[in-house]
């Protein structure tokens, strides 16, 4: 947990995979992941961001979309504050073939060593009005977060900026 010489740090090594997702009624989705971490954290090795292949629904495993996208990253830090979070965003085509967002989700990297399975509920922001909902459905430009990292942050959730969220179901990590 400590490195010689310089100031003491601890290392957190994360490896895992984005296994599969359950998006009933949706198909041909791909997912994007990135890590969000605090000021005292520095990634030392591995990929901070990544994007998966497009997965089609499998007949066997209860309509799961299997990505098996490996994650491997190592952080060093001096402070548990700002523990890394993985942020996932899933995209896929809508009825007209536009690429739209299908879900956002975030979860902290487990704080205990060992094998963990995390299931993330995914959600997307909703249009502010019914008319906008229609136009966005029609044009294929649905509301998205300016930065997917928002879902891992606490800021901007206070009064004034309340957005409706539409939950779509689970996701295995």
């Amino acid at each position, binding site marked *: 947990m400590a490195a010689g010489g310089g*100031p*003491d*740090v*601890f290392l957190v090594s994360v490896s895992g995979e984005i296994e599969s997702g359950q998006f009933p009624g949706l198909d041909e989705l791909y997912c994007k992941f990135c890590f969000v971490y605090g*000021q*005292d954290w*520095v990634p030392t090795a591995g990929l901070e961001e990544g994007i998966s292949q497009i997965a089609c629904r499998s007949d066997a495993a209860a309509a799961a979309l299997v990505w098996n996208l490996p994650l491997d990253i190592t952080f060093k*830090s*001096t*402070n548990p*504050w700002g523990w890394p979070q993985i942020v996932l965003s899933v995209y896929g085509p809508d009825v007209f073939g536009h690429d739209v967002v299908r879900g956002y989700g975030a979860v902290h990297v487990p704080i205990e060593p060992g094998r963990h399975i995390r299931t993330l509920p995914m959600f997307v*922001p909703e*249009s*502010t*009005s019914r*008319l*906008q909902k229609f*136009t*966005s459905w029609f*044009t294929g*430009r649905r*509301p*998205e*977060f*300016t*930065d997917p990292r*928002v879902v891992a942050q606490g*800021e*901007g959730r206070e009064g*004034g*900026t*309340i*957005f409706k969220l539409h939950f779509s179901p689970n996701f295995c990590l």
Partner: protein
Amino acid sequence: MAAAAPRGLPPVPSASRTGFAEFSVRERMREKLKAARSKAESTFLQEDSSPRPRRLKSIREKKTQGRLDKESDKDEFREMQEDESHISSKVKFRDSTKKAKQKPPIQNDFPSAEEAYKFFTFDFDSEAERKKTGIKKRNELNHEEEEAEEEDAETHEEGQEEDETDEDVHLVKDDDLFILEQEAQDILVEKPAEYESYSEQLRKEKEFLFIPSMKAVPASQKMPENMQPRFLEDEGLYTGERPFVSPSNLNILENRILRQERGKEWFGDDGKILALPNPIKQSLTRPPIFSLEEGIEPELETLYRKAIKVTAANQYLVGSGDFQGPFQLDIDISGLIFTHHPCFSREHVLAAKLAQLYDQYLARKQKNLTTLLTDKLHALRNAVQCSIEGGDAAAPKPIAQQSIPEYKMEIRQTRRLRDAEQEKDRTLLKAIIKVWKEMKSLRDFQKFTNTPMKLYLRKEEVDQRLDEKAYEAEIQDEINELLEEYREEYEKKMEEYKAELQEWKSWKRAQKSKKKKKKKDLREEEESIDESDLGEEPVKPVPPKMVNSLEIEQQVREKVDSFRRKPGEPVLIPELVLSGSITPSELCPRAEVLRREDVKKRSSFIKVLFNSKEVSRTVTRPISSDFRVHFGQIFNLQIFNWPESLKLQIYETTGISSTTLLAELFLPVPETTVLTGSAPIEEIEFSSNQRVMLDHEGVGSGVSFSFEADGSNKMTLMTSGKVSNSVSWAVGEKGVPLIPPVAQQNTGIASALKSIDAIASIGTSGLTDMKKLAKWAAETKLDPNDPNNAALMQLITVATSGEARVPDFFRLEQLQQEFNFVTDEELDRSKRFRLLQLRNAEVAEFRNYKEVPLHEREISEKIFQDYEKRLRERDVVDSKHYLDARRAVVANYLQKVRESVINRFLVAKHHFLLSDLVNEEEIPSLGILGLGIFKLAEPKRPLKPRRKERKKVTAQNLSDGDIKLLVNIIRAYDIPVRKAVSKLQQPSKHSRSFNEMFTASPSAQSPGENIDWVLNQVLVRPFVEVSFQRTVCRTTTAEGPNPNWNEELELPFRAPNGDYSSHSLQSVKDEVFINLFDEVLYDVGEDDHERGSGIHTRVERHWLGCVKIPFTTIYFQARIDGTFKVDIPPVLLGYSKEKNLGNDRGYDSVRNLSEGSYITLFITIEPQLIPGESVREKMNEMLKKFDTQEDEKLLQAAEKYEAECTSKFPSRQCLTTVIDLSGKSVFITRYIKPLNPPQELLDAHPNSSQITAELVARYVALIPFLPDSVSFAGICDLWSTSDQFLHLLAGDEEEHAVLLCNYFLGMGKKAWLIIGNAIPEGATAYVLTLEQNQYAIWNPSTGCFYGQFDTFCPLKNVYCLISCDNIWFNIQEYDSPVRINFDTSKAKLWKSFFSRSSPYPGLSSIQPEELIYQPSDKAAVVELQGRIEKILKEKIMEWRPRHLTRWNRYCTSTLRHFLPLLEQNRGKDVEDDHQAELQKQLGDYRVSGFPIHMPFSEVGPLIEAVHSTGVHTIDIPSVEFALAVYVHAYPQNVLSVWVYVASLVRNR
């Protein structure tokens, strides 16, 4: 043995070896061994037979000598002999020599003992083996044979050894001849064996051994002297159960302990060993696991459980497969009693009240708290008495001593409680009597009786004497206690008083001595001293008063009188009976008859609702005259659903028709233990807020009425009552309770736990039922003294006594202490924690601090030093860095303002709008949709070129090197040209007027001059150098005053800290410097002979001027395209401005309007960045939340106006409210007000208003420019008023513009403030004036003015105009000043804020009435001038470290003379004079130099300006320099600084 030399081998076999060489090895070995044996035998025999071993020795000697040819055996032998003395002890047979004492020392010839030993113990085998190996080489024989041989050899050897031992025996016997040096007598001592007699042994053992006896120790031994053991349990103290130890073992232990010193400490007051209570629980807390199968560990056993089908809702018991039959709930509704009903007569009301009070009385009597508390009080008093007496008798025990004050405290508390209870009793009794009396009087008054109630007061006579005695004793006790209490308090106070008095006295004494001294010295001042001293004098403490015992007595007696029965007074016991008779209706008045009839009409019934569904209802029963309804019905509910709620609804019907819901009440679902038959009838109260008014005697509900005749003392009663009912679970035919299975399971839980765990026994819901809890506590015989049960016992006592005593304190978060893992002080001391806190608070120094170290020790104190220093120096003005103390104050103040702005900004940064987080398409408007459709129908025109929009890049995913700044330098006009040194030009003074400017008249130079000039023209070879972020690029050198470069320069851009987010880019402070230079080639081939062979030139660059463009402007504008005025010093020595035209007349009209040089540029960023506007929007949002003193309506109007304007022209900024220095929103027009310029300026040119205006503009421009929001690029401007601005002497464009506008208004001009966009400032404020039907645009920060149609006007867009009473927003198609109409009266072009419909409300200005100017301090200015000059000279020398810097004083003094002149002419048209003058004075020098003019704020910028011109870079050896500084002071300390720098090279 093997180590021994082969000395001892007989020679025979060796001799015979050759002879037997052919024989097999075995044979040979046998032979050999045989030989060896025979030899040995023979030698033994020899030895034996020969009495003298000398011979043996000689024989051996011979042998060895014969065998070992040249070995010096003798020496070796001697050595051995010597050795032998050391190792003699090893030798076996030596022991026997002890006895041979008288033997003479050994001779050399004799074989020594060692020798002999060696001989006999010699290992022949090893020799044999050695042989063997030799043989092996010669004969290849199999190993088996060898092994066999070996075996043989071993057996032989053994035999030999046996022989040897035999021989030893022999040897010992006749070994008399051996002797030892040491004798046995020296070592050995003879002594008789020691023996202790057994008795002695026992005696000794007794001394330190102890066998504890098993007999019980008498208590007296365990206790201190003269003490009786106490029995704590009997005294009411908690002892706990002791762990079991067998009595005999306990006795042993006690005896053992008592043997020790201070052993008595081990025993408690009760004479038992101090012990903790038994920790062992009576029963298992973990349920035991029983194994069904043998051989399998119960923990590992698998159990089969039938799959359970989960039903959707568990409440439906029917759904489950194992339905166990119907469950039944019995609801018994016996009756209804109204405690108030609208039909109550007044008498009924009183009767109800009486009944209620009586009930209360009965309840109190049953509890009898007073007696209880009195008894307790007595007991406590006795206890105190006992302990005090006991303390006298024996040595006072500390515990007893301690408990006395506790007891006393308890006594006080109990007494207080007792008094309260007594008072309540007494008042209750009084109230009962009072109500009864009222009732009687009412009955008398109305002459009929409605209720059968009667109250009897039974008197119980008491023995007067006894009673009196008790009464007195009680009073005495109380008085004593009170006295004691007061005395304690008095003592405490007295102590305090003494301390205070002591302090006061010492102070007094000091005062006196001081006074005396002073008196001696100055008597006249005595009075004043006295007065001043009196003020500080501490108050003389007042001694506390001892309370008089008489007073106390009186107090106590009064108190007792008020609520205690007087002695001798009979005890009154009220009794309520219902035996009275009711007056029949015939005898009653009409109103009463009506009431009774009404009551008869009324009836009521109750609905039973189970899970909010009506399941049954009672029959309707009439309300009886005493307002009781009897139902007496039992409902058996067969239920399938789990009961969630059980509700009763009480209905009342009047007559036949109307039915009203009186009240709803909820019944608790019974516990599973409540079964039919055992369930008690409970009364549940209800009340309704129904309002009923009646026209007869009935008092009604919710209506106020009064008993008094005058209508006072009104009271309002609501319909209320009680329903007596019971709810229980039914019992089936076989006595099985019909309770749902969930509950049944619960009851089946191990009953063993019942006595241990309250929850297991009575269920969690039982915890809320105090009665059950109390019952359980009593049943399980909980030890009430056990601290573990303290909370429970308290709960029970509180709940059962009916009234909780509220403690004297309230504790918030009582567990907080436990969760604090570190004390607050420690936390505060932690550096790491502090660092984290500061970072979280976004303190400037730590805002972006990354990787806070893990350990405290890794954080150096240095981190905080800067921060602490800043905190300390926040209020300390350090004038060291500033030449002017005033400026230091201002700088400090501005720093604070800036900090507050930054803090606000940081707050705003954390405030997100929806659009910041979510990207959402806006709803397309109809227009856009229509346009889209129209576009589809548009014919395709492939040949029409279309501008492709560049791809915009969001700033997030960029990194270093991605962004480039493209600077395209196209051309320049009117660059100053070099002047021929010898040529003296006619001074042509030239000053423009407005007229000239606007009419664009051609200049007045004669063509003759023109031609002359062209002929003598010296080329200028200009080039442009662009520097940005320390990267420098230059163009090629062009020729002539109107060069055309058309070159693109590419400069990389690097964001601060690699942060490419938009707000980071917005705060980039870097500027793009575009410097114009002249490249001068000088021929330096000095010698004639060199000149022939080669050309040697020196390249010099002369700075001509520069243009500065801040990066943020480029960032916000995306591209900058235009012609800019080059900032050229007013005088460039050696250069002159081309005033008139050469060959190209095309630019005529353009150029002669201007007098500066211009450069055409195109700047952009590649790739295009999306300017982040979000911060500004957010900031505006935030700003709206700031305080304001403006009218709410005005603000709303402003918001609406802004919204309207920006919706039409989103790019045009509309400004209505701004923030003042104190952070409040202020309506913008309040800033505009005519103000007086300094009189001095007005007086300077009294006859020319235009020059005066220019002078005023110059004055304003001289106030240093200091953007208040450098870091946020105009996001949050703070507008200071003009007086604040003049006081601070620093401000940005808005302040300058406001002041200038106000001055113009003050001078009687028509002036407006323009909010617009200019290059290079970006969003800015200019001033518009109307001069002789022409509009002039003034740049307040330079003091220049431009005509409306001036193409070189830096103002590019006009957004709105602001006057002192209105705001006009530009709604014209274009916003360039050249293309718009400034006539604000046209509503189509300008949208005004205040119009006819909403007129100007006459807002008062926030500007002062008049500005007051302080004249500047001339002396200070002169001093400052000297200092600046010195500093600059030092700096120039510093910049030229490798060269000698010579100062030409003559030139300097000449330059110094020029400067005031320059100031006077405001830098216009004086250069020719300079040139001439210098030429005249200096003679043959090539002079290049220029004056720099700046408003003065600090020295730093001056130094920078001088440095940037690069004057010091000339490295011609003979160069000389000249530098002169002139500071001109304007009123209010506005300083104009001129620095004249020149380099001189002597011409040859």
